[in-house]
């Protein structure tokens, strides 16, 4: 059955001894100037679970991810990572939390002055300083193989396609073995075959690594393929949250229109 999200039901889940959410967002509000982007939304995701956040363009899906990783500050509400509220954390503590997160940007955001290998090695060079160069190179090779980009170490980001850039971005996001994976439009702008390959890759990583993932997308097919739960946003609110079947059975006009 479809369930609109409410705090009471989530609290009761916790009280019943359900899994403690790895990421819990409560009553989150964010405005840019006079434009309210998020209007008190609440969501959570547990270990090994993938939540797809759907919605029309400009409904604050990407802003939600940027708030979770601390690139934006909320106007009100709370974001808890492993139960710790990230509001007002020192830069060092926030850094420690970010090391547990991997973020795939919508346009991959690869460092254009570095090679593919340099991009993947970048977090390792800064946070695994004890690693020798050989160990780091091996790790980069392994990560690139994991995303199907073996042999591309010396290529520059400008020399590879959009789909390949996303794969490299994903390898970079996985470099520090994150517990939380945030994916911003992982299949946007890709052809159906490349989209399918990225979906398969995300599913494979989920099976192997059991991360808590939040995937922002407006690709319904992709969301259905890779997520356990879906949340549909409209005008800064969660309209519905549940399994794909729950959305299909919903009588809410916006949900019907979106699925159509």
């Amino acid at each position, binding site marked *: 059955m479809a369930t609109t999200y409410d705090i009471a039901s989530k609290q009761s889940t916790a009280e019943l001894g359900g899994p403690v959410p790895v990421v819990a967002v409560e009553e989150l509000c964010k405005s840019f100037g006079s434009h309210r982007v998020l209007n008190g939304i609440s969501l959570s995701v547990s270990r090994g679970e993938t939540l797809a956040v759907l919605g029309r363009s400009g409904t604050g899906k990407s802003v939600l991810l940027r708030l979770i990783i601390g690139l934006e500050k909320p106007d009100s509400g709370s974001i808890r990572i492993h139960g710790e509220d990230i509001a007002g954390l020192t830069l060092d503590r926030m850094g420690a939390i970010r090391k547990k997160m991997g973020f795939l940007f919508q346009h991959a955001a690869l460092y254009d002055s570095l090679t593919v290998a340099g991009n993947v090695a970048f*977090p390792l060079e*800064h946070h695994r300083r004890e690693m020798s160069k050989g160990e780091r190179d091996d790790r980069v090779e392994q990560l690139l193989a994991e995303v199907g980009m073996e042999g591309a170490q010396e290529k520059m980001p400008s020399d590879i396609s959009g789909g390949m850039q996303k794969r490299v971005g994903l390898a970079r996001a996985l470099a520090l073995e994150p517990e939380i994976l945030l994916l911003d439009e992982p299949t946007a702008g890709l052809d159906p075959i490349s989209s399918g390959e990225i979906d398969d890759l995300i599913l494979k990583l989920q099976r192997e690594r059991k991360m808590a993932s939040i995937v922002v997308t407006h690709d319904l097919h992709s969301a259905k393929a890779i997520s356990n739960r879906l949340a549909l946003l409209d005008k800064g609110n969660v309209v519905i949250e549940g399994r794909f079947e729950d959305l299909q059975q919903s009588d809410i006009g916006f949900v019907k229109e979106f699925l159509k």
Partner: protein
Amino acid sequence: MSGIGANAVAGRDLASESERGGFVVSALGSLGGAVNGFLEWFGSLGIFTWQVLRAGVTPPYEWRELVRQLDEVGSRSLPLVAMAGSAIGVIISLEARYSLSRFGAKSMFPATLVYSVIQVMGPIITGLIVSGRVGAGIGAELASMKVTEQIDAIEASAINPYRLLAATRILACILMLPLLTLVADASGLLTGWFAQMLVEPLSFHQFVEYGFQGATFNAFVPPTFKTAVYGLIIGTIACFQGMRTRGGAEGVGRAATNSVVLGSLFVILADVVLVKFILVAFP
């Protein structure tokens, strides 16, 4: 009729009074907006500087990036600075010889050239050249990284962009400006002497002996090392303009332009203060 005419004149007076009032209000509004924008810019620059300072003094230190930036700011600016210094040396040589000849003070030529190059032209030319080359480069590079979310990606990877990108570039500018100034000075003195020698034989030994006669530490060292302040200004403004960019390719262009324009302007303004400070502190 005359009453109607008088009313019409009074009406026109009232209308023009009202227009004048509207113009004054509008002008005051624009002025207020400009002052507000100026104060906001300075406030943001202050906050940015504090964040960079805080990030820069706390470990982990980004040595590798610092070395890369020292090369970028120093080695790669060297040919340009040497060329500009050489040109300045020739210009001062030509001008000084002509002016000194008119007053029968040709013997003062070596000292005039040495003091003009080292105390005045070398530092300011180096500052302006570096502001143009390095300021534009840093502004455009960081702005491009900002609009393509590369700076966000650095932050999302738990790396402090103020430490990695800004502190290293600003420190490289501070360290390299005095060294580049020495290069500009040396080039200027050499070409100045050479230009003079083509007209009137003067050995290099004599040139150095007369030029540096009675020279003191205060005469040459503070003017050279004041350029570290230029480096601070150029690096800070370029990083600030780059990292606060918005708006795609247009924003990148604006950041590069503003980095050069504001950097050069503040270098010249700082020179006014620094010259006075050096005259008072190092008499």
